[in-house]
Structures are given as structure tokens and as C-alpha cells.
């Protein structure tokens, strides 16, 4: 895995070094998306060469802003003809360096395509363009009683979330992007426009043909540009209750989680914070949570069903030696209860001011979660690493927030090695090296280990079929 944060190079992309053919295509780009729709400025290119990850900035050679799928297709045709890499860009909030133009090329910034199309209230679906973010969509839907619940934290582009198969804190109840994308409009590397489930189709289920929709979900821009996504919507919860509970051990917390799920409680969020993280949160927010493994829970439903959900859950936590079970119904108290979880990232960073943070992202079957967390914590202590843990424990997915000094090469190396050990530990426990962040730049080798050579060959075959010139976001995933 390459963290690449020890140097900040622009190497061959700065100044007047042009990739062959680039100066010929700029006028062609301008004739497609207008004078204002093309930029060569250094600041703009830099902005589009980085995301929220620790990977170094790899600016593209040029940034274009198409305004419609027809323009995307026309631009792609030009790039295809001149063999220029194509890098789709949504909001730049990814965590795995997915927008880095490692071989230069053309960044397609899709933010000007920002319409919410076709809200179908009775069918619980909506179609959006890439410029629409999760929060913008939910605001748009606010008087329909519907919402799109997948919440990866950042206010990400929904098409970008489809491209990375994003997830979030309430996947345990509402699923990830994989379960919630009904159809995609995709532009392939040669400009061909396809609808993965057929144009305009938005049924809740289908048995028609190969599942192209889910081929593109999670493809991280390596198979095509997503220009529309049709999403499954849900009813806004009537009421919410949040709760917090402390446990004597990781095992007890995870056992409680498993039992809550087995009891059929339709829990909306169940988040785990380890003692190191709780300690960080206490310091950061002057709180006084008991410094021990803690679960943060959220319940959605009608008033009556909430009562039942909370009662059943409280009993389960008590049976597992849980203590200090606190719950709240009104928005303000709920906010206070969950403050620790909301500020976890910042609390971790505050442990060592001036440092950067990198989040690991493994996921294992629930039954293996206690083991992997315990072994991981031992690894952290042994290698003198700062890595408070926050996890979507209902999915078996957890993040170590690795706080490190980017100038301390030794620490950087230790973190790198730790992360690889962690990924392999997860793989050995029937898990995955990335639960929700994607493969991006840094986990390609781990993907090969996870999938095995045969599956990787199939993936490469698909890539070669859809993008024989390897123009779509080169250097990522495979």
C-alpha cells in the first residue's frame, strides 16, 4: 500500500509539459462544453487531483465541466480518440485516492450536472445527476416524507457514492449503495451511453439479464462515468431514540450486538467506540463517559415500536454486563448523547495536534469481530501506534483512526505495515480489506489476495472488454 505523503511532487504535470495530443484537444473540449467549461489553471487542477485521503495530490492535465450526458459522451469520444485518461470527479470526498490522475489525463468534474429528476413518491424512487449530494437530495425531498438514508458521513455526490459502493452508519438497517441503486446511466470510455437496467426502468426487483447495475456500483470510475443514478428511497422515521451503553469488554459489546440483531430489533445504527477512542472523546469535548468499550445505538420507528425496541435492547445489554444505559428521545439530548461518536475523527486528531489521520476499513463476519479487534489493539500497543477504534459493529466493519506524524518516516512505515497486517488479519477471518472506502490507489495488492487470481482474471477481462485502452481512471482497483 502506498501512502505517498512524504513528498509533494507534481513532477511532469506542472508548467508547460504537455502530454502528447493535449494541446490539440483543448479547442475540441471548449467546443463541447464552452469556454468556461475547460480549465488548465494550476489551482483548479490541484483541487481536482486530491480527495480526503492521505494520498498525495496527482493533478490532471486539464479539468472539464460537462453540462449533460451528451457532452460527457462527446468529451469521452475525444479522449478515446486521443488515448487520454478519463478521471470522473464528484465531490472529492473519497478516502482512497480515487481521483488522483496518476497518469495525467482529463478530469471530468460532473458537479454542474446537478438536477434531481423524477421523484416518484408512491414508488419510493428518485433519479439524480452526479452533482446532487446526499444532503441536497434529502433537503429536496423534505416535504415528501421520504429520504435516502445511506450516510457515509461526508456530503458526497450520490453518483460518487454509487461508484465507490459507499455505506455508512445505518447500513445495518437500510443497506449500502449496492442494495439501493436501481439503475444507472453510464458513459463508457468510448462515449457509448448505456442504462444498466434499461432506460427509465425502476422496478424494486428484476430478473432481467446480467446485473450490470451492480457491476458499475463500486467500480470506482474504472469502467465508466456514472451520469445518473436511480435510488431506492425510504420513509422518514416517525421518531428516533438514541442510546449509549458501556461494556466491560469488546466481547460483551459485540455479543450484545449479535443478540440485538438476532432478537429482530430493526436497529438503525449501532456504533462501537473502544476505550482509547472514548478517552480521546472525553478529552476533546470535556465529557465523562466511562473509559471502556461503548456502544452508541439509534432506533427508528413509531412511538410504540420504539418503546419495545429500547426495552428489548436494554435487557440484552444488561444480560451482557452492560452498564450506564442512557437513552433520549428529543433531538437535543440525542445530539448530546451521540456527540462522542460524531466528533470521533476530530477527537482522534486532537490526541496529537499537527498530525494527520488515516482510517483503516476492514470488515469481517460479526462472530470474528471480537477476535480481530482484540488482536488489532495488541498490535497497536506493541508497535507504539495511535489508533483509536470506531466501528459499524452491526456490519462487522471497523475503522482504526491512525494518527501519525507525516514527517516521521519511521512512524509512517510502521502505520503502513500495521495496516497491511490488519487487512491480512481480516482476510484470514473470512473478511474483506475494505468494507466501505473502496480499493482506490492503495489496496490493489490486497484486492488480489482477497479475490484470488481467478476472480481477478475475470475482473480484468471485464475491464478489458469495457475499456480496452485502459483510459477509465487508470491505476485504480486493478
Amino acid at each position, binding site marked *: 500500500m502506498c501512502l505517498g505523503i512524504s513528498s509533494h511532487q507534481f513532477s511532469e504535470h506542472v508548467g508547460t509539459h504537455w502530454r502528447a495530443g493535449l494541446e490539440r484537444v483543448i479547442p475540441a473540449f471548449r467546443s463541447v462544453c464552452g469556454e468556461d467549461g475547460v480549465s488548465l489553471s494550476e489551482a483548479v487542477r490541484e483541487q481536482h487531483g486530491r480527495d480526503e485521503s492521505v494520498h498525495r495530490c496527482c493533478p490532471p492535465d486539464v479539468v472539464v465541466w460537462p453540462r449533460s450526458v451528451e457532452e460527457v459522451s462527446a468529451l469521452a469520444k475525444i479522449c478515446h480518440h486521443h488515448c487520454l485518461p478519463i478521471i470522473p470527479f464528484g465531490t472529492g470526498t473519497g478516502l482512497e485516492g480515487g481521483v488522483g490522475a496518476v497518469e495525467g489525463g482529463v478530469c471530468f468534474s460532473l458537479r454542474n450536472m446537478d438536477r434531481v429528476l423524477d421523484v416518484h413518491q408512491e414508488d419510493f424512487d428518485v433519479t439524480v445527476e452526479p452533482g446532487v449530494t446526499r444532503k*441536497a437530495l434529502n*433537503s*429536496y425531498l*423534505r*416535504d*415528501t*416524507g*421520504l*429520504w435516502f438514508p445511506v450516510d457515509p458521513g461526508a456530503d458526497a455526490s450520490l453518483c460518487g457514492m454509487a461508484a465507490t459502493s459507499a455505506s455508512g452508519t445505518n447500513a445495518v438497517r437500510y443497506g449500502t449503495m449496492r442494495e439501493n441503486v436501481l439503475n444507472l446511466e453510464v458513459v463508457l470510455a468510448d462515449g457509448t451511453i448505456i442504462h444498466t437496467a434499461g432506460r427509465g426502468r425502476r422496478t424494486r426487483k428484476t430478473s432481467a439479464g446480467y446485473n450490470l447495475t451492480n457491476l458499475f456500483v463500486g467500480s470506482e470510475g474504472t469502467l465508466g462515468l456514472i451520469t445518473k443514478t436511480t435510488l431506492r428511497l425510504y*420513509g*422518514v*422515521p*416517525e421518531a428516533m431514540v438514541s442510546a449509549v451503553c458501556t461494556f466491560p469488554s469488546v466481547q460483551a459489546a459485540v455479543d450484545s450486538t449479535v443478540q440485538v440483531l438476532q432478537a429482530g430489533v430493526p436497529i438503525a445504527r449501532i456504533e462501537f467506540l473502544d476505550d482509547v477512542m472514548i478517552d480521546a472523546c472525553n478529552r476533546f469535548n470535556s465529557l465523562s463517559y466511562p473509559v471502556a468499550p461503548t456502544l452508541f445505538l439509534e432506533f427508528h420507528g*413509531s412511538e410504540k415500536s420504539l418503546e419495545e425496541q429500547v426495552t428489548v435492547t436494554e435487557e440484552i445489554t444488561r444480560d451482557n454486563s452492560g452498564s450506564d444505559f442512557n437513552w433520549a428521545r428529543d*433531538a437535543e439530548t440525542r445530539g448530546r448523547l451521540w456527540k462522542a461518536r460524531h466528533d470521533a475523527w476530530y477527537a482522534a486528531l486532537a490526541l496529537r495536534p499537527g498530525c494527520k489521520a488515516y482510517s483503516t476499513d476492514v470488515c469481517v463476519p460479526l462472530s470474528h469481530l471480537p477476535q480481530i479487534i482484540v488482536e488489532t489493539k495488541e498490535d497497536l500497543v506493541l508497535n507504539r501506534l495511535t489508533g483509536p477504534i470506531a466501528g459499524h459493529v452491526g456490519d462487522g466493519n471497523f475503522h482504526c483512526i491512525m494518527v501519525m506524524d507525516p514527517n516521521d518516516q519511521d512512524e509512517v512505515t510502521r502505520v503502513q505495515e500495521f495496516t497491511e497486517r490488519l487487512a491480512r488479519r481480516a482476510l484470514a477471518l473470512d473478511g474483506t480489506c475494505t468494507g466501505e472506502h473502496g480499493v482506490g490507489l492503495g489496496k490493489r495488492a490486497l484486492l488480489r489476495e482477497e479475490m484470488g487470481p481467478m476472480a481477478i482474471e475475470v475482473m480484468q477481462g471485464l475491464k478489458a472488454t469495457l475499456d480496452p485502452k485502459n483510459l477509465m481512471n487508470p491505476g485504480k482497483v486493478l
Partner: protein
Amino acid sequence: MSRVLVGVKRVIDYAVKVRVKPDHSGVVTDGVKHSMNPFCEIAVEEAVKLKEKKLFKEVVAVSCGPAQATETIRTALAMGCDRGIHVEVTGKDYESLGPLQVSKIFAALAKKEEASLVILGKQAIDDDCNQTGQMTAALLDWPQGTFASEVEIEGDKVKVVREIDGGLETIKINMPAVVTADLRLNTPRYATLPNIMKAKKKKIANMKPADLGVDIVSRLEVLRVDEPPTRLAGVKVETVDDLVAKLKESGTI
């Protein structure tokens, strides 16, 4: 002390990029997403909260405008209002409808419905007038608590914490009174599907301004609407001396 009247206005949604019509007579509204004015949402939320605390028996949502105004009333009903009143104003009358006429309508309705409290948003995000609440109170000769960030009922009085330039001002006014909602008063609830279904069954009465004895002729004429001037590109200079020279040149220093 039983009834609250809440005014809700249908406006262009806050997230929309507003465009001026080519003839400069107004802004483009056809095919553009509309929703309830955000400050009206806060007003509705406050009224519903007061009812939930059993301080009032009924919340009535009122909107003035064409047929589509009933959509906005339905949203208010889904948030918890009990019934609605749609005061129909269409066409040119609607285009020239402003705070003075609307406050005459609200004043008439407040008397007719024997409201103890009228809650409005402090201003609408389309015209930013910030006048309707104040004019309504004046027409009724009722006290007003505007820019409210906190509202508390104390017997037959209302304690209002107002957001003012210097900080916060707390006043106590007699009911009946007019209150206008400011941003920090509350966080409006989302309408949930079951409540939207229930709202379909709630009643919306229909009437015209004339039925209330209100004359809605406008005393204002909009002459022209323009977009703000386009921002000019900045100029980069190489050195501090260049910067000083440019500033002197432009007469800034």
C-alpha cells in the same frame, strides 16, 4: 386561549438558482421547485410544539395564493396543524400581492378565528420584506414579538426572546399577540409518510380576500428586476510594490 394561526408562504425553494426573466419583469417561476418558506416551517414547528404541550387546542395554517398554495398548507398539516385556510389569489393579483395586503388578510382571519396567537416566519426568502408580522400586529393593535429565538407562554402572556443586533432582548407581551420566528427558534420536523397520509384527510377551507372584506389592490409597481452585477475577475500582481501602485491607481489609497 385556544387557537393559533400560522401563516405559510409558498416560495421558490432555497436551493434553486434563481434566474431573472428575459423581460426583466420578474424571476422565472415556471417549472421551478417551490416549497414552504424556511421561516414559515419554523413558525409551524413552534405552533405545533405549543399545541403538543397542550397550551393551545388548535393550530390553523393559512396561505394566500393560487391553487398550488394548498400544497404548502398540506405540508403544514403533515407537520401537525389541524386544519387549513386557503385564501385564493391568482394571476396579476398574485403577482402584486405583498405584505400590506397579506397582513390585512391575516388580521381579518385572526379576528374571525378568534386566534390568541399569530405566528409567522420573520420574512420570506423571495422578497425579504420582513413586514407582514409587524403590519398584522399594527392592524390588529396587538403586541408583537419579532425575531423570536425563544417563545414561552406564561399564563395569558407570552415571553419572547428576540434576536437583535446587540444580542438578545427578552420581552413579555399580552395575548392575543403576533410572533415572528427567527432561525434559531427551533429545528422543524420532517413530514413523515403516515402524517402526510393523515394530512390528506384534514380540512382546508377555501375563500377569497373579498369574503374577508379585504381589498388587495397593490400600491406598489415593480418597474424592473435585474440580476446582481457579475463579479469581475481579480487581478494578480507580482510584487507588493505593484500592489501598492495598483491601489493608488484605482484611487483606493
